């Protein structure tokens, strides 16, 4: 694992189109984000292709933006906004700004270790999939340190998603998903849900538009300091599920003719 690859990425701005863009949505992440950036930069710089890192700040009230900018990494961009719009809005801004052939979004706490990225990339590069979804529910996934409450909720929500929206993916909420560039732009430009359950809408759209979606087992650790208020988010999740149905019936997701 040559350190020189990381050093080059850190200091020399790339001119070619990135093969991979990684988008990290961040809200008040000044404590956790630097370690995650370090782990990602070290690992991905060694994969042998050009790549960019985008931190999509979501109107953080702490020093997230300053902390990240002061790292002075040549191929890292910070997307700023004055207003907190929800995780979905940060991911959307990142996805629409990213230039890579493939675009991954990953959570700021490195809860799915970045070493899993190659599994998703292989699905898109070699197996012809349009979307690869990191999954804690697929066979072979490793789930560490997940509370009983979160396990029960996940199970319940998976059933609702399966039968309510007919989404085949078992784990819609894992913060580790990769798309080809065109598909990322098409899906996220139609996105209307900006909160926690934006993933659900994106996967619903992927299914509706006929994209090939792979569910890839990944390791996942319930990182301490999660900002998810479980009760509130379940309510919002159910409300968003209804919104997706209404949007669909009222033509919000209609695709323009080519």
């Amino acid at each position, binding site marked *: *694992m040559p*350190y020189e690859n*990381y050093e080059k990425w850190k200091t020399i701005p790339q001119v070619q189109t990135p093969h991979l863009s990684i988008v990290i949505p961040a809200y008040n992440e000044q*404590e*956790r984000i*630097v*370690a995650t*950036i*370090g*782990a990602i*930069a*070290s*690992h991905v710089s060694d994969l042998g292709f050009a790549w960019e890192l985008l931190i999509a700040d979501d109107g953080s009230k702490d020093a997230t933006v300053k902390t990240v900018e002061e*790292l002075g990494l040549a191929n890292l961009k910070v997307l700023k906004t004055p207003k907190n719009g929800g995780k979905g809005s940060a991911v959307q801004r990142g996805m629409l700004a990213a230039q890579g052939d493939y675009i991954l979004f990953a959570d700021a*706490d*490195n809860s799915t*270790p970045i*070493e899993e990225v190659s599994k998703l990339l292989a699905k898109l590069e070699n197996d012809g999939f349009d979307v690869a979804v990191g999954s804690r529910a697929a066979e072979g996934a490793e789930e560490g*340190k997940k509370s009983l409450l979160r396990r029960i909720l996940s199970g319940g929500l998976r059933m609702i998603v399966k039968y309510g929206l007919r989404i085949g993916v078992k784990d819609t909420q894992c913060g580790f998903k990769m798309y080809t560039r065109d598909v990322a732009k098409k899906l996220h430009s139609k996105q209307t849900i900006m909160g926690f359950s934006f993933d659900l809408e994106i996967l619903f759209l992927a299914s509706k538009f006929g994209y090939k979606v792979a569910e890839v087992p990944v390791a996942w*650790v319930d*990182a*301490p*300091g999660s900002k998810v208020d479980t009760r509130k988010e379940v309510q919002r999740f159910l409300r968003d599920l209804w919104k997706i149905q209404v949007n669909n019936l009222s033509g919000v997701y209609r695709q323009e003719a080519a």
Partner: protein
Amino acid sequence: MEIIKKTSGSIAILQLKGRFDAHEVAPVAAWMQTQVDAGLAQVLIDLEGVNFIDSTALSSLVRGLKHCREKGGELRLCNLQQPVRVIFELTRLDKAFSIYADQATALAAFQNIE
């Protein structure tokens, strides 16, 4: 995370393997406190098996370093894998700790001071 405790003379050694994050800080912090309380303020932490360290774990190491120095000792680190090395650099903690390539070099550095 796997934790292996050893000693080499008056130096307490902790070898860690796995993800060193907030879930894993308590046993490491307790071990460091026990060593310092017992007058073993020369501590070496071997991070060879660690591929990710989060901000809580970093803070626990900084606290351990402070406690060791208050007792006239030192906390040193060795065998940092590249991701952990990069995290130390980005957080600028590589300037706060004495970091060595391997256990032998770190142990020799303790001997030079004694």
